């Protein structure tokens, strides 16, 4: 009987908790597509003062001529007047420092009184070409070290050039950037260069391979074959014919999303779209890594500055993240680590569980995610709860990153970063 009462109590409690969280988009795909790049917070300025920087590293000298525009690692700073806390924002998979979502966080944190440094994802071409020591990203600790080093360079540069006055340093990341925040915090516990005061993870991936596979499959499972991608694109365009404007010529993950803002689509179509957006990142990754490592998996030739890239695009043929791991990353790490490395071994280096003990005991890290975030497996969610315990909060809705600019979420994030108070209830 008592157990029964307990059950009712918990049920009622959860209902009341859920009821308090009024995030409007209950469908995880709608949330992901629409919510993830849209500010749903009052009083955030449209533009904040932002200065762009470029660091030329050793590796920058070797940028191939067809990728000349990637020379130098790029980032931006939004600087407060006088002394202020500094926060680094780590971007999601493949996103650049100036992608819509990273910029949204930049606006939020600038408004909240922080100096803001925005950091490009380790899976972005600019990072792979200029920073990545392996040139084959995907192993968490190694990618983390690359990030750690370049973030030091970033800080040195802005301190020197802009006489930036800072008190404490904070760190946050979303999506894969959140995963990297955890790794960075771990590395900093040894290196002590930043002494991050607090670390905030938003919708991390726990197992990079699992997450990437889910996203790959969203495209793969919803089309008959790759030749159908053109048809999907046409359908997408048909849906939006009345809303196009010349600015839609900009091809980014976000612009594809924003095209869909006003439309109701089937889940299947939305999944395809999310998968396709992720696929664009994977295509670039496959190509860049193949070219700069000279592995010639997709093409035997190396293009010049004005060479037509279509044959290379054709050769890549919408290769996805799994292709990247199988055809490029695994052979590379097998070569470095010897013949005993299995594919599954490698996958483990992309799993946050490798620093699980650290995360369990590090009081300054908190994590938020969503019950319906499809990049997490049930096990991953369990891992989050067990590892972070009261330092974790799982919102009922929001899909993947769909609710991170929602008022409740932003308030909670700022409350923790500003005051160190993390109320893990809704």
């Amino acid at each position, binding site marked *: 009987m008592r157990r029964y009462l307990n059950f009712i109590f918990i049920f009622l409690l959860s209902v009341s908790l859920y009821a308090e969280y009024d995030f409007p988009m209950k469908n995880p795909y709608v949330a992901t597509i629409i919510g993830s790049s849209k500010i749903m917070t009052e009083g955030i300025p449209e533009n904040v003062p932002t200065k762009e920087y470029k660091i030329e590293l050793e590796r920058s000298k070797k940028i191939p001529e*067809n*990728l000349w*525009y*990637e020379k130098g690692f790029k980032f931006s700073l939004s600087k407060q007047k006088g002394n202020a806390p500094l926060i680094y924002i780590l971007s999601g998979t493949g996103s650049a420092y100036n992608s819509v979502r990273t910029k949204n966080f930049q606006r939020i944190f600038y408004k909240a009184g922080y100096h803001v440094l925005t950091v490009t994802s380790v899976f*972005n*071409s*600019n990072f792979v070409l200029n920073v990545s020591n*392996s040139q084959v990203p995907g*192993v968490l*600790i*190694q990618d983390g*070290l690359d990030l750690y080093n370049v973030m*030091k360079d970033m800080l040195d540069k802005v301190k020197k050039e802009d006489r930036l006055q800072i008190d404490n340093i904070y760190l946050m990341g979303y999506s894969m950037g959140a995963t990297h925040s955890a790794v960075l915090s771990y*590395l900093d516990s*040894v*290196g002590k260069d930043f002494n991050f005061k607090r670390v905030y993870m938003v919708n991390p991936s726990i197992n990079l391979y*699992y997450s990437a*596979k889910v996203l*790959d499959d969203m495209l*793969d499972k919803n089309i*008959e*074959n*790759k*030749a159908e*991608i*053109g048809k999907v694109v046409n359908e997408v*365009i048909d849906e939006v*014919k*009345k809303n*196009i404007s*010349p*600015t*839609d*010529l*900009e*091809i*980014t993950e976000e612009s594809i999303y924003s095209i869909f803002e006003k439309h109701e689509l089937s889940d299947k179509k939305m999944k395809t779209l999310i998968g396709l957006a992720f696929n664009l990142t994977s295509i*670039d990754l496959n190509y860049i890594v193949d*070219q700069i490592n000279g592995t010639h998996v997709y093409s035997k030739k190396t293009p010049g500055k*004005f060479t037509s*890239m*279509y044959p*290379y*695009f*054709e050769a890549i*043929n919408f290769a996805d993240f799994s292709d990247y791991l199988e055809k490029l990353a695994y052979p590379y790490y097998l070569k*470095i*680590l*010897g013949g*005993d*490395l*299995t*594919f*599954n*071994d490698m996958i*483990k*280096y992309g799993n946050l569980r*490798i620093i699980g*003990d650290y995360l369990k005991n590090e009081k300054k890290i908190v994590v938020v995610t969503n019950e319906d975030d499809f990049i997490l*497996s049930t096990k991953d969610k369990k891992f989050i709860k067990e590892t972070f315990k009261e330092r974790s909060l799982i919102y009922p809705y929001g899909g993947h990153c769909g609710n991170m600019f929602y008022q409740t979420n932003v308030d909670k994030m700022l409350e923790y970063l500003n005051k160190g108070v993390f109320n893990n209830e809704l």
Partner: protein
Amino acid sequence: MNYKKIMILSSLLLLVGCSSIEKKEDIKLVETHNNSKMIEEVAVKNKEYLKLDLGKEIVPQPVIGDNEVVRKKEINGTKFIEVYDPLEPLNRRIYYFNYYLDKFVLIPAVNVYEFIAPTVVQKGVSNFFSNLQEINTFVNSLLQLEGRKATITLARFGINSTIGILGLFDVATKLELPKTYEDFGLTLAKYGIGNGPYLVLPGFGPSNLRDTTGKAVGMVTIAEVDPYNPVDVNVDDWGIRTANVINARKETKKFRYYGTGSPFEYEYVRYFYTKYRDTLIDVNDVNGRGE
């Protein structure tokens, strides 16, 4: 001399939990930072964190929870992105030129403009040119025998040029006269003229032979009509032309050459431009372009 490199390398190997595995000679890891001490420390710590049994055969497990197996389909699906582009080598160079034109001339000019001109002025300028474009929409609606569209456009132009003070204010839209868009390129398309080869125009960006012709005709049309001649405003004036260029770039400012960071940007832009024009043709066929 390679002492440091080797140390870094072996630390990295430790780092990923496989101290017992021999390194291979052809691995190139470039040390860009002086943090070998830290790497060592991390490596030591990692012995605890990376408890991986390498060398053991691990039975591959399906990573995804459900059982559906995704068959790899290798059918080539990129064909749809192809666009007729025989002048590609030249186009790519103009594309490159446009990047520098943007960098040193257009974008700085737009930035100055946005800095000095109040938003309401910018809006007025944008309306002014948009109103001039109505001349083209009108002429081309006539050419396409779209009487209703032509009439509405003429009414819009009349109202905005007078009450709206030379088009600075879009009064017509407030009066619920819908704005539509036509140009000579679209008229040619309507009468069955194909795209022709893809072209990148200096300063203007993506186009094709048909649309370039259309654009030229459109510019001449507006200059010839010279609608504000009676009030001594010459739309072909040097200052107005400059303002037109700056305003046009401002309106597409989100697009930057090489701004996507993708090695296939040229291909994507070419495809999406073509798709965009095709779509305009379709949209105009069906219901006119409501804004």
